[in-house]
Every structure is written in C-alpha cells, then in structure tokens.
C-alpha cells in the first residue's frame, strides 16, 4: 500500500467499522446494543491507535491534510466519543432507549469530525461539517418517545441548518472572490490582502462555525438542546463536536485566513467576551444542572476563543491545553449528572443534590472537584487552562480580554460554588440509585486526572506545543 494513504486508515476504520456494526445490528435476531457499543469503542480505540501512528500527509490532491495538530485534536475527539459511549450504555438501557443505531451514529459523527479537523479545502470542510451535524441532529432526538428530546432534535436541526446555510454561503463568497477553495492557494492569494467580498465571506464562515461551538451570540440553541437531549448525547455535544469545530476554526482562521488576522481578530474578541459574560451571568439563575452546564460550556468556549484571538503560537497551544482539560472536566461532570437517578427516574435539578456529601461522599467529592476545576481554582486542572489562555492573551496585548476573563471567572465561581454548597451544606437525602460501573469509571477517572494534573502537566503541555507548531509551521 502506498504510504501516502496511511493517514486515511483511521477514517476507513471508522466508516467501515460503523457499517459492519450496522449490519450486525440489523441482521441479528437479538438485541445487539451492548455488542455494538463495545464494538464502537473498540473501533474508536483502533482508529486512535492508527491515527497516532500515521505520518503527516496530504490526501486527495489537497483536500485533507494530517499533521501533529490534527492528530492531537483527533485524539481528543476519540476520547470524547468513547467516554460518551461508555456513559450511554447504562443510561440508554435504563431509559428504555437502547438501540444499536446509537453507537453507529456516534461513529459516523466522529468520522465527520475528523474530516473537519483534517480539512485542507473549504469543500472537504463543509462535507465533514455536514456529516457530523446530520448525525448529531438524529442523536439529539434519539429518545424518540420523549417530547423534550424530539423538540431538542428539531430545534437543533432548524438552527443548525441555518448555520450550515451561512457557512456554505460564506464559502461560496470566498470562492467567488478568491477563485479557489484550497487552503494553500487561498493563503497565497490572501497574503496580498483581500477585498470586501472575501472578508464578508470569511465573516459568514466564522458565524457558521461559531454557531457550532455555541459562542455567544450564536448560542441560542445550546441550553434547550442540552436540556432536552438524553444526557450521554449532551455529554457528547459538550465535548467532541466543540473540540472538532474549535480545531477547525484554528486551522481555517490561522491557515488560509491567517494573513487577515487584523481584520477578523475583533470579531473573535467580541465573541469571546460575549460568551464569557453570558456563560457567567445566565448560569446564575439556572435550576437545572444540564442547563447550568450548557451555559458553563458557552463560557468555556469564550475562554478557549481567547487563544484564537491572540492568533499566536502560544495562543494555539493555550487553547489546545484548555480544550483537553475541558474535555476531562466536562465528561466527569456529565457522568455525575447521569449518576443522578432516583427510583429509576433521572433527576436534573441542582436541589436534588442536597445532602449528597453525607450520603455518597465519593460522588459528591468528584462533582465538587469538577465544579471547582471549571471555576478555575488551583491546584485543579481547570486553573492551568485559564492560566495559559490569560497569559497568551496578555502576551498578545489583549489585556481587556484578560480582564473580562478574570471578572467573569469570579462571577462564574459563584454558580459553581452553589452546586458545591447544595451538596455539602444543605441538608437532604438524595437517595440516588446505585451508579453503574461504567459511569463510575468515567467519573473517578476524570476526577483523578483533574486533581493530579498539577503534578504531571508536562506531557499534555509539550504535546499541545508541538501540535501548535505543526499548525503554524
């Protein structure tokens, strides 16, 4: 086999693996959800292994490009998807929505995401974007008999198609004015400046992608979709697609459009400030923990965008570190939400957690660790994400952004603290059901990583640095 095609293998594994699992599910007489889920996890592990072993390369005449940067982002997506599958296993069975299509759809979504991450052409970018979006719409509505879930799916679909429309419109404008969709050619053309048409096109592309990372003011769908979707799907929404889209934002904005940094930086700054502010303020009044996490994720995306606004090597590294840390915290927090079940019913309000620390100290401590980490309190991992983005922003001269970040962190700390307060200080008997071992695994592994990151930060930071260098050359 031509070694040029080695970078393609992970994608092939995902696509073919997904189809094989689909066949198993369709042809088998018995319910194969469990087999398919574990099969999908295995496919993800295999794909991740091949992905990490694959060399850098350019595929299909410049449609896709792999580098250390794409491998870094791919790995995060694989991890996120695998964790979501582990969480779904027990949840879907208890909610009587266990279907073998679920893991298969997750695999196809992951395929879409890695195409997005490796895209080196506006066309492949759009194809990857649509593949993951369409599968995610279905996943949002996967609890077919639940009104909220179908509503979430429909809402996500309608607003998501709008974003897709904006994105493709932007792409067509860029193509019309620049005459190419290839990233390398675009970079060469735009190095000499760009006309208004191209700039408008870039703005549309940016808006389409901002919608997917749910940066304010394009966040409207997030709270409703997070609340309505089945929790494992929410966990997936909160992590893998956001990481993939954020990686795409970096590779597009700093790649072909990198020379126009001065033109689009202001937009990113505004998105970042609005997201941080909205994430901090709107979450205060929330009673439902999934909605709280939705607003919290909007805020986190604001912090992550700070690195893009910096537009530097350090900024890219900072965002990659931030995303990796966010991935772990976020999954841990969602595992805790999934573990909130009373008498077979999922409960979702923060008040349901009252008294948890006496009844189940391990669970309460894990959730407290995630909340503190999200608030960015050292020595937990979340602090380091914030430290890196703040230092990147200040070094790039974006002091306002950093000051806003600091103020919103304080405000944000207030609602994260409220969750801890309810668990530790309020009296109550949550009486939660026994947590499934797969959920417990995600919860405690996440808590351990979040706590111990302070002792061994080296590997992640070095890897993020190398990935950032690979992106910016």
């Amino acid at each position, binding site marked *: 086999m031509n070694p040029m095609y080695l970078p393609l293998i992970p994608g092939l594994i995902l696509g073919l693996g997904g189809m094989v699992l689909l066949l198993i599910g369709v042809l088998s007489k018995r319910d194969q959800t469990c087999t398919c889920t574990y099969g999908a996890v295995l496919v993800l592990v295999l794909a991740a292994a091949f992905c990490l072993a694959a060399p850098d390369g350019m595929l299909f005449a410049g449609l896709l490009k792999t580098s250390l940067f794409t491998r870094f982002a791919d790995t995060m997506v694989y991890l996120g998807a695998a964790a979501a599958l582990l969480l779904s296993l027990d949840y879907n069975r208890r909610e009587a929505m266990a279907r073998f299509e679920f893991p298969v759809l997750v695999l196809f979504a992951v395929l879409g995401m890695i195409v997005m991450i490796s895209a080196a052409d506006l066309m492949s970018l759009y194809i990857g974007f649509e593949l993951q979006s369409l599968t995610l719409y279905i996943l949002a509505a996967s609890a077919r008999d639940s009104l909220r879930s179908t509503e979430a799916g429909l809402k996500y679909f309608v607003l998501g198609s709008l974003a897709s429309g904006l994105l493709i419109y932007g792409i067509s404008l860029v193509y019309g004015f620049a005459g190419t969709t290839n990233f390398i050619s675009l970079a060469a053309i735009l190095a000499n400046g760009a006309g208004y048409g191209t700039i408008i096109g870039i703005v549309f592309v940016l808006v389409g992608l901002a919608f997917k990372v749910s940066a304010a003011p394009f966040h409207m769908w997030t709270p409703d979709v997070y609340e309505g979707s089945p929790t494992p799907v929410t966990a997936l929404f909160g992590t893998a697609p956001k990481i993939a889209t954020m990686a795409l934002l970096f590779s597009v904005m700093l790649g072909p459009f990198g020379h126009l940094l001065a033109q689009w930086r202001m937009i990113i700054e505004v998105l970042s400030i609005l997201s941080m502010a909205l994430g901090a303020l709107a979450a205060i009044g929330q009673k439902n923990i999934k909605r709280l996490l939705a607003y919290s994720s909007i805020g986190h995306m604001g912090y992550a965008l700070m690195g893009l606004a910096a537009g530097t090597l350090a900024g890219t590294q900072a965002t990659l570190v931030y995303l990796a840390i966010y991935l772990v915290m976020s999954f841990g927090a969602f595992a805790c939400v999934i573990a909130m079940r009373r008498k077979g019913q999922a409960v979702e309000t923060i008040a349901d957690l009252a008294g948890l620390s006496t009844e189940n100290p391990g669970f309460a401590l894990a959730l407290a660790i995630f909340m503190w980490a999200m608030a960015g309190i050292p*020595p937990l991992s979340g602090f380091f994400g914030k430290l890196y983005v703040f230092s990147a922003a200040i070094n790039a001269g974006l002091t306002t952004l950093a000051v806003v970040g600091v103020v919103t962190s304080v405000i944000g700390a207030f609602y994260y603290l409220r969750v801890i*307060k309810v668990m530790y200080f309020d009296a109550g008997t949550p009486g939660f059901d026994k947590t499934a071992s797969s959920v417990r695994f995600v919860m405690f592994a996440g808590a351990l990583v979040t706590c111990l990151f302070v002792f061994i930060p080296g590997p992640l930071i070095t890897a993020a640095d190398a990935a950032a260098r690979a992106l910016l050359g």
Partner: protein
Amino acid sequence: MNQIGFPILSLLTFLPLAGVAYLATLRGDEMAVASRARNGALITSLGVLALGIYLWMAFDPSQAGFQFVESLPWLSGLDVQYRMGVDGISLFLILLTAFLTPIAILSSWSITKRVRELMMAFLLLETMTIGMFCALDFVVFYIFFEAVLLPMYLIIGVWGGERRIYAAVKFFIFTLAGSLFMLLALVWLWRNAGTTDIVTLLHTPIAPQAQMWLFAAFLASFGVKAAVWPLHTWLPDAYGEAPIPGTIMLAAVLSKMGAYGFLRFAVPMLPQAAAAAEPLMFTLGVVAVIYISFVALAQTDMKRMIAYSSAAHMGIIIIGIFTFTVEGIEGALFQMLSHGIVIAGLFVCTGVLLSRGQTLTLSRLGGLAAKMPAYAALLMLFSLANVGLPGTSGFVGEILVIVGAMKVNFWVALLGAGGMVLGAAYMLMLLRAVLFDKLSRPELGALADLKPGEYAMLLPLAAMVLWLGIYPGSFTHMFDASVNAMVQAHIAALTPHTALAMVTK
C-alpha cells in the same frame, strides 16, 4: 539540592498530604474512624512540627538570601519551575503554621460531625499554607495561595454556625475576586521579566507607572486576605461562623498570608509604588486600629469581639510594613507571630466555653474566675498579651512598630499607639464580663476547670507568649539579616545615588 541534602521544604509541605491519604483509607464504624482520624491527623501535624523545628535549627541566620532552595522543572514551555526556599521572613511563618495546626486539631476534639473529613480539610489546609510560605515561584505561590480557599470554604460551610453558608460564600468570593487580580498582575510581571522566579522578579526593575497598577492588584488580593479596612467585611462573618479550629487557622495563619504577600511581593518588587502608597496604607492601618477597635467595643459576643480585635491588630502589622524601617518591619513580623499565637490562645479559650455548652454572649457570662482559676489565669495572660503588656509577646511587636513609625511620621505613631489604648479597653471589658462580675446564671458555677486536653493546647501557647515576650532575641536574630537586606534594597531602589555611594564607599 540544598545544604542539608534532602528536600525538607517539600517534605514539610507534602507530609500532611500523606496524612490525608492515610485518613482516606480508614474504614470501620463511625466512632472508630473518628478517633483514628483525630489521632492520625494529630500525629501527622506533630511530625510536621518536628520537621519545622529541625528546619529552624538548620537555618543559617547570617544569610539574607533564600536557603534550602529546591527546584524542579514543572510547566514546560512556560519556564515555570517548582521552586521552594525560605528566608528569615518566611521561616517563622512556616513554623507558626506548623505549631498552630496541631493546636487547631486538638481544639476540634469536641466536634463529632464528619470528623474524618474535618481532619482531612485541616491537613490539606496545612499543606497549602506551608507550601505558600515556601514557594519561590510566583505561579507555585499563586496556586497554594488560592488553594487555601478550598478546604477553608468547606470548613466554614460544613462545620460552621448558623449563618455559615452566607459566611462561606462571602469569604470565597471576596478572596477569589481579590486574588484573580493578582493573577493578572502575575501574568504582567511574568511578561515583563520573562520568568516567574521570585528571586529574579525581586531584582527586575519595573516602570513606576506600571507599578501603581500592580500595587493596586496586590492590594486587592493581599488586602482582602489580611482583612485591611475596608476590605475586611468578610472577616466578622467568616470568623464568627467558622468552627473554633477554623477560626484559629483563619485568624492566626491565613490572615498572615496577606501580610506576607505585602512583605514578599508588594514592597520589594514595587518600591516606588509602595513608597507612594505609604500615606494610603498608613491611613488604612490607623483607621483599622481605631475604627475597628471601636467596633470591637460594641460587640456583645465574645468570639466576635476577639475577631474584631484580630482585625484591629492587622492594622498595626500593615503600619509596620509600610514604615520601610528595620524596626517597623521587624516589629510587623514579630507582631505577626505574636498575634498568631495570642489570637489562637484567645480562640481556644472561647472554644473551652463552647465545649462546656455555654453561650458566648457576654451578658450571659461572668464570674468564672472563682470556679475556673486556671482558665481565668490563661485567658488573662492572652488578653494582656493582646493588649501589649510588657513581658508578653504583644509588647515587643507593638513597641518596634511604634518606634519604626515614629521615625517616619509622628502622627501615625501617636494614632496607632492611641488605638492600642482602645485595645486595652475592650480586652479588659471582655475579661470583666467573662471572668469577674458576678455569676449571671447559677449554672455557670458548676463549670469544671480546664481538662488535660485543654492544657495541652493552652500551655504551649502560653509558653510561647512568654518566650516571645521575655527573650525576643531568639526570634529576631533569625530574621535580622533578611529584613536588613530588604530595607537596604528598598532604600537603594528609591535613591539610586545613595546606592552608588554605598558601593563606592
């Protein structure tokens, strides 16, 4: 590696964490776990104290610089290293923490609610506090400084009094807001000097214009921690609502973190801004001494009165630091130690009453001297030390600060000393209300005097009060060199010509 060949500072810092790990493994019924947790925590903290005393013995007082320095690569790409070291300024604050943690743990003996978690929180708190005083890298310092919030928040919120939730959240948000501004200052300094090594930062010149902003950020963070007026409003709530051992750690150790921050960062790194802020800081200090003393006079609750007295004495420490004289700074440092021990003693005395099921409302106490003579003697000793009676620790620190202040500004010295008269007034009022008068309620007559466990807490504190008061030299000569070097550096930074003259001479 350092001069004694093993990483003593890391050991001091992380030994309590080993205790936490041990406590986490305890299994069995609640009573057994509780008593083993108490013993485990006490033994761990005594081990830390032993190590601390060894550190004191091995410390070379003739050197002004940092000793026992350790460094390990840590955050790659950012040039942030794990650096630890002590000098004369931090040495005794580490010892103070190591000395007071076992006492705080002993004073929590009567708490029966979730003992294991409480002990784990105290050991975590000890790790964070000692680590903060040892840190020689600004990022490492910041991490420990912030992380103190986590155990303290839980200590106030879980084991505190009636309004504990309000107090815990207020404490957390106030301190977090302050320290995030320090984070911005940290990143700015980092960018300016290209490193976060504190030793390098101390010698990196900073433009006077920028110093003002940085000083404001430091004031926001250290001022909140040290409860400088008007940033002190979280203090009465937190001190009042925290359980006794928590109050001891808050008042005796955590408030020193703010003063230490001023001494370690604000003054030496920002000499021009610190000099320019001198009138402001004197004003804040004098207001703290006088105004907060008046507030203390108006309190009706024993614990709250001591809490306000603690805040008033922080004013003296601030005045001492900002005189920039050797006497003033040594006085401030000495006062930090003395205040830590005296306040701890007073709160332990408060805890003695609480553990006998008594209220702390002053009007419902009285006449205890007749029934509890030993208790009365010790409470009297700590109260008089708090007032600054010669022969006790409080005197040495206050007289040094006032001498330092007198050199700089007569009015500050006068008003500061005047404030201490108010201190005498409220402490004597407290003594009269608790110990003398007549028994306000008959059941007070039935109270037993001190038990062995209480002696174990109060006698070491009393011994320290007298030692510090009678022979202060054994402490001051340890920090003479560091303070002298600091004052020299400060003068040199303000007047480049003198520095040149000193070199040529």
